């Protein structure tokens, strides 16, 4: 019984963390995008526009949730939550401090990599339930893209697990050495690119390519339901960055204890900024180029990384 209560508590904490992260994330994204594009970004509400989300979130809350008449009502209503749930779950296994993670299981890394693939199903459900051709195309694109990019993402994390010798995130963090960073640099880059593609962001935002499909699979969502999709996207970004910070970049490496957690969050924030920077610099890749890039460039790079680690492993 207490485990269930503990789970619910951690669930609520994860949702709140993601909601807070999304609020700050959206503001920070609009600032970064603004300055990249020679403008200021939000300015008026609060110092440097920081309270802008204070205005946006209530607006989204009170906005009318339109459910298209032709839509498959139950599926349409539950799809956003189905998209959001895996993201919240994946937060649980990330080791925030040396040796401590909200859910310290022996298969944490595997869990982290596997859970987002549930999103694919949720996106297909969302896309299909709207009965809208553009949304359908968007949904199919998203599905093919996410399935394609799970492979390099998993492969890029494998060398880490090999070096650490166990699937338990806290163990990986514990076994982390500083020279792992240069060693696993290729894996880190492949992981970063693959996770960007997983989030449908940056150069790979095919599903909601504004120029063609006008918003892909969440075209007909509005109000809070649409906001949940947004939170799912930002949640995925936060989760991926935190995981990368905790594992590839060695968690609170130079410091220990509380300062370590702060270091993890700082590194994650840095990574998020890089992801945003990449999004606002590059044009969008076409669907076929996207898939060709995944199989012909990312997967071989991940395998090269595995070989490198394989060669180094005996000396360990």
């Amino acid at each position, binding site marked *: 019984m207490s485990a269930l209560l503990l789970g619910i508590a951690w669930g609520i904490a994860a949702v709140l963390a993601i909601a807070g992260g999304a609020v700050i994330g959206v503001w920070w994204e609009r600032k970064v995008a603004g300055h990249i*594009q*020679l*403008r200021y970004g939000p300015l008026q509400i609060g110092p440097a526009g920081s309270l802008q989300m204070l205005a946006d979130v209530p607006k989204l809350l009170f906005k009318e949730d339109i459910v298209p008449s032709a839509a498959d009502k139950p599926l349409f209503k539950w799809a956003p939550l189905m998209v959001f749930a895996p993201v919240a779950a994946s937060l649980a296994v990330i080791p925030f401090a040396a040796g401590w993670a909200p859910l310290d299981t022996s298969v944490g890394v595997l869990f982290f990599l596997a859970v987002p693939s549930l999103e694919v199903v949720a996106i297909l459900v969302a896309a299909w339930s709207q009965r809208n051709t553009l949304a359908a*195309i968007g949904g199919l694109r998203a599905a093919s893209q996410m399935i394609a990019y799970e492979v390099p993402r998993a492969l890029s994390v494998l060398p880490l697990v090999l070096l650490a010798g166990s699937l338990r995130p806290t163990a990986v963090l514990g076994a982390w050495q500083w020279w792992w960073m240069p060693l696993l640099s290729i894996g880190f880059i492949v992981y970063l690119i693959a996770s960007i593609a997983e989030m449908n962001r940056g150069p790979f935002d095919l599903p909601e390519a504004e*120029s*063609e499909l006008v918003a892909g699979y969440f075209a007909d969502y509005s109000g809070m339901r649409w906001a949940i999709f947004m939170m799912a996207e930002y949640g995925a970004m936060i989760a991926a960055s935190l995981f990368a910070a905790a594992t590839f970049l060695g968690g609170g490496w130079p410091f220990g204890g509380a300062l370590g957690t702060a270091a993890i969050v700082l590194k994650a924030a840095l990574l998020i900024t890089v992801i945003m920077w990449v999004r606002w*610099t*590059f*044009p969008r890749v*076409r669907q076929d180029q996207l898939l060709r890039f995944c199989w012909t460039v990312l997967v071989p790079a991940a395998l090269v990384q595995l070989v490198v680690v394989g060669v180094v492993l005996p000396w360990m």
Partner: protein
Amino acid sequence: MRTEELTLNLGPSHPSTHGVCRLVVRLDGEVVTHVEPVIGHLHRGIEKMAENRTYLQVVPLTDRLDYVGSMYANWAYCRAVERLAGIRVPERAEYLRVIVCELQRIASHMMGIGSSAADTGATSAFLYAFAQRDLVIDLFEALCGARLTYNYVRPGGVAFDLPEGWVEQCRSFVAQHPSAMLEIDELFFGNVIARARLKGIGVLDADTAVAWGVSGPSARGSGVDWDLRRDDPYSVYPRFDFDVVVGSNGDAYDRARVRLWECIESCRIIEQALDQLEPGPVMAEGLPRLLAPRPGDAYDHIESARGSLGVYLVSDGSVRPYRMKVRSPAFCNLAVLPLIATGHTLSDLLVILGSLDPVFGEVDR
């Protein structure tokens, strides 16, 4: 497995169809098998309205033809009126027209390059291009008080003389513009993703371009070496030396880069024009307030940012034109779209449409 073609209806109000154009597209999966542009949504009947206005009152109408470049739309009309009425334009007015028109070509190409960047998703490159366009529009606002529909070039000369300080402002813009263009070139056109998206799609070879009457950067992108400013010289263009930029492959990439390098060439022309500018009257003297040219018909064209923009005027001796026909380059360029867009994917279709740089005020008239 039996697949069925999906008929998709893009537009007329679609974020990236460059104005009110409806594309009826038949898709086989992602690949476009048939596209048919349905135009006419912005048809205001400018040619019919022109028959009801005096020669001076038609100039604000020509602003609304190619609203992204209304300066040279005015100029084309005014050249036709001057040829019809036999007006001699003073020297300084010709120079002002060239300067203002080249600035407008730059501003219009910024829209062309910016929208090809936005179509492929690079919103930052779009905003860098629009930052340059805004500098040009500030120059026009200082010159004639308007930011889009200028009503500046008039039959017989130009409406106002330069305010003081304008020449310096123009020189500083022209000094920094080429480096800004090269920066956009590096950021967007040099980028491997953009090259992958733009190269090799919407290929238009030189002969079909000529046969279909395509003109301007869209034709020069496929190697048609034809620029009215050099091959059918008008006004004071023979006094400047500039190169005509010609591409080779005829794909969307070449068309966009031809536009980019044309902006740099325009800077060169503006600098030479500013050096050769002398004081003098800006409007022909002794024109009657209500122009009434003798009966007859005249045609004159200029090199606009989209091609050879021509105006054919028929006069019956009264103060109102009897018939005005605008030969709009965007209309003829758009006719080629079905030819070059079939066989590409949906996302490429819109990039190809953007590479033809149509403005639907001019297409629909």
